[in-house]
């Protein structure tokens, strides 16, 4: 448990992807079975345990602690598991021991409902502070360490010198504590043979069209499709096992049961998950804002299913039944996909239509004025290209609609992480609005990229020289009509928001340009943004 607790502690505070992978790889290499397999499961979200309610751990602490002191402590720390792990005092004379994670998990899995309370108390007595914290996060079911399943798999791939694709192929056929997987990765056994075949496959990604990219390309070599504004998914039904994955390989079947249920087609398809109606039912596609109601949920209730019905708009196909379609050219795959979708539920599947065009100019006009508000651009796919994992330049391009742009005033800045930890590189910006007492700035978003290193130097210097107030790590900077810093912010869309004071939330904002040529009074007003809500760029 010590090693696992230390790993969690480091992962939470480590922002760099590569450093996270190193921490994971080193842990997997140095920890024994079955602990490392359960750790993997806990991180990848495949560990099932009887969870414990927060009230129980609070009660356990209050068995030993004055309630007033508990409240002072909890108010100060702000996190219950952390408060309990820190304030817990084992009985006099108890020496903390390192209970292996494997033993902890197996005891929890064996314990009956009535035994849980005393088991948790006993574990808290035996573990040290960091161990208690990890244990409590595990049993209350919320690790929240900023590591996706995909990242954990990358660490496994690095551990064994394998390709992540091989790990993905195996992943859903294995279960905690993943003994055969680790045997294979450490070179002590052959690659495990699965009884249920393979599931998630790395998706094919497009590169953005850049200046001059189209000049040397012949429109006749490409097919164009709309780029829909939902989330990219992969749906697999192989050997009767049905799974829905996000584009990063995280399983999201639980959040979209209607899709999984309707997935009567055998094979693996690639598409956009959207809500609303399919073209086959002649109903309109709903916006990304509506889709968000369904995202980041483990389960879903009846009302959400009725109000925001989900469907998949098919883009491509990887397998038909057991047959690997990936080496086939795009047009052949598209035929197979069309046939498959034709046979599937019209409420849950439709085919992303092709956009006929003959010149790039014509396509550019179509791109600027698409027929549906849920379109965010054009995809270009070489007709002869196979389906290739990852992002490479050439076979697929994305050509997005121009993003929205506004001029906003810098209001707050915060230091970045890692390489940027000595720079003020996270910026909150605002626009003007009328409030009681006159015109004031209201924050409308936050951005931490888009600028060049040289521009960052300029922004950083401005923040340091113009700080008017500090709130912990945050600095408020000078922002008055005639003194301050204007930045051009680009973003993909605007949603209504009840969480933000301004009432709007930007999607994917970034700082497009520094506008030192402008005074803050020339920046945009909130009304301009409000008029953009629901519009597509």
């Amino acid at each position, binding site marked *: 448990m010590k090693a696992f607790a230390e790993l969690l502690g480091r992962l*939470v505070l480590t922002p760099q992807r590569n450093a996270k992978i190193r921490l994971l790889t080193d842990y997997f290499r140095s920890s024994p079975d079955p602990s490392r397999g359960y750790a993997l499961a806990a991180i990848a979200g495949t560990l099932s345990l009887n969870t414990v309610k927060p009230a129980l751990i609070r009660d356990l602490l209050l068995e030993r602690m004055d309630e007033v002191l508990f409240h002072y402590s909890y108010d100060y720390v702000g996190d219950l598991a952390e408060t309990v792990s820190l304030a817990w005092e084992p009985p006099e004379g108890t020496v903390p021991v390192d209970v292996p994670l494997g033993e902890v998990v197996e005891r929890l899995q064996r314990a009956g409902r009535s035994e849980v309370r005393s088991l948790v108390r006993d574990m808290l007595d035996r573990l040290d502070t960091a161990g208690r914290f990890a244990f409590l996060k595990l049993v209350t079911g919320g690790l929240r360490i900023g590591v996706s399943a995909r990242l954990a798999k990358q660490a496994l791939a690095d551990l064994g010198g394998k390709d992540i694709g091989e790990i993905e192929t195996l992943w859903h056929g294995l279960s905690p504590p993943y003994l055969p997987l680790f045997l294979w990765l450490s070179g002590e056994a052959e690659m495990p043979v699965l009884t249920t075949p393979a599931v998630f496959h790395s998706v094919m990604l497009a590169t953005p069209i850049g200046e001059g990219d189209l000049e040397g390309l012949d429109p006749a070599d490409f097919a164009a499709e709309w780029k829909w504004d939902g989330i990219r998914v992969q749906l697999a039904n192989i050997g009767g096992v049905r799974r829905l994955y996000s584009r990063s390989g995280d399983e999201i079947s639980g959040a979209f049961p209607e899709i999984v249920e309707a997935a009567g087609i055998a094979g693996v398809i690639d598409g956009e998950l959207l809500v609303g109606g399919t073209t086959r039912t002649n109903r309109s596609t709903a916006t990304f804002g509506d889709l968000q109601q369904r995202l980041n949920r483990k389960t879903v209730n009846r009302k959400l299913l009725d109000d925001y019905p989900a469907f998949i708009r098919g883009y491509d196909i990887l397998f038909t039944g057991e047959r690997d379609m990936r080496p086939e050219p795009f047009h052949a795959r598209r035929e197979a996909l069309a046939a498959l979708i034709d046979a599937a539920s019209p409420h849950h599947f439709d085919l992303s239509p092709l956009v006929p065009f003959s010149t790039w100019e014509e396509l550019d006009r179509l791109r600027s004025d698409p027929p549906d508000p849920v379109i965010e651009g054009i995809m270009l796919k070489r007709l002869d290209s196979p389906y290739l994992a990852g992002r490479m330049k050439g076979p697929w391009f994305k050509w997005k609609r121009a993003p929205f742009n506004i001029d906003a005033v810098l209001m707050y800045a915060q230091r970045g992480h890692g390489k940027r930890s000595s720079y003020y590189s996270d910026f909150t910006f605002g626009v003007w609005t009328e409030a009681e007492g006159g015109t004031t700035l209201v924050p409308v978003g936050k951005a931490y990229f888009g600028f060049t290193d040289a521009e960052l130097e300029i922004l950083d210097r401005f923040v340091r020289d113009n700080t008017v107030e500090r709130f912990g790590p945050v600095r408020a900077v000078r922002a008055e009509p005639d003194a301050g810093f204007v930045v051009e912010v680009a973003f993909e869309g605007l949603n209504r928001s009840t969480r933000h004071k301004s009432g709007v939330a930007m999607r994917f904002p970034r700082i497009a340009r520094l506008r030192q040529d402008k005074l803050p009074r020339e920046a945009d007003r909130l009304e301009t943004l409000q008029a953009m809500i629901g519009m597509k760029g």
Partner: protein
Amino acid sequence: MRMKPDSLLYPAPRGLYCAKGDFYIDPVQPVERALITHGHADHARAGHGRVLATRETLDIMRIRYGEGFCGESQVASLGETMAINGVRVSFHPAGHVLGSAQISVEAGGKRIVVSGDYKRRSDPTCRPFEPVPCDVFITEATFGLPVFHHPDDRLETARLLASLKQFPERAHVVGAYALGKAQRVIALLRQHGYDEPIHIHGALAKLCEYYQAEGIDLGDIQSATLAGEKRPDFAGGIVIGPPSAFADRWARRFAEPVAVFASGWMLIRQRAKQRGVELPLVISDHCDWAELTGTIREIAPAEVWVTHGREEALVRWCELEGIPARPLHLVGYDDEGE
């Protein structure tokens, strides 16, 4: 709670005041006569008329503020009793930083011990705390909540060394307060057998030199502020500087720095997160909860007064234990600076 001004010591606007002796302890503004517990800037300020403190504390004040830091200085020898206007005064080790002392003030058969900042665990850079029997014990409460249980320093040092091994291509930049913490971290690393050169920020140089001159072995210390075209990026090395320096442009020279911070506050994850710390080391120069309550039990004073920090929780604990206690509400002490 208000104390009667005729008591031996009471909080006045400029600090804790002894009317009978006409002196202040750790005053926050310039006064005629000040007794100083230790050299941290919020306790030891420049500009007093006369200052009584341990030789080391006076040296530290001189290093920080220059020769003219006060009108007249007088050395207090540990354990030796002096009389100031009929008040018996003595200094005793507090275990906080080099030169730190508790101050015992006695008159009319009543003894009050002002502990200043103190800690109970061993520290290779200063003398250990000595409990002094008294009627009133004035304790700090920087970490006065039951959540604060500082781990063994050696485990924390080992975590730093483990990370150094794990990320040999990155510079480990350790934020540590310039007086006391920085030297203690270095001494702990040396105790752990780490004998590579340790690089320090310029703000630490004079104090580290002073510690070395006082016979505290810090090993090979080198400046991290090297000029020139081909300055090193300290990959795989340890660099120590005041916490503020890491938020500064100074930190940009290092190879993919791992942000480390040595402080008792690092026990709270959110604190580490807010500051962008990647490797928090819980190394504190103050008592944790068990040490605070253990010290009060050990000294068994008739009454406890609690100053800067989380007074309310420690007062509550005293109430539960049946020990009369009250918060002092002194202002001007930086309980965050650790």
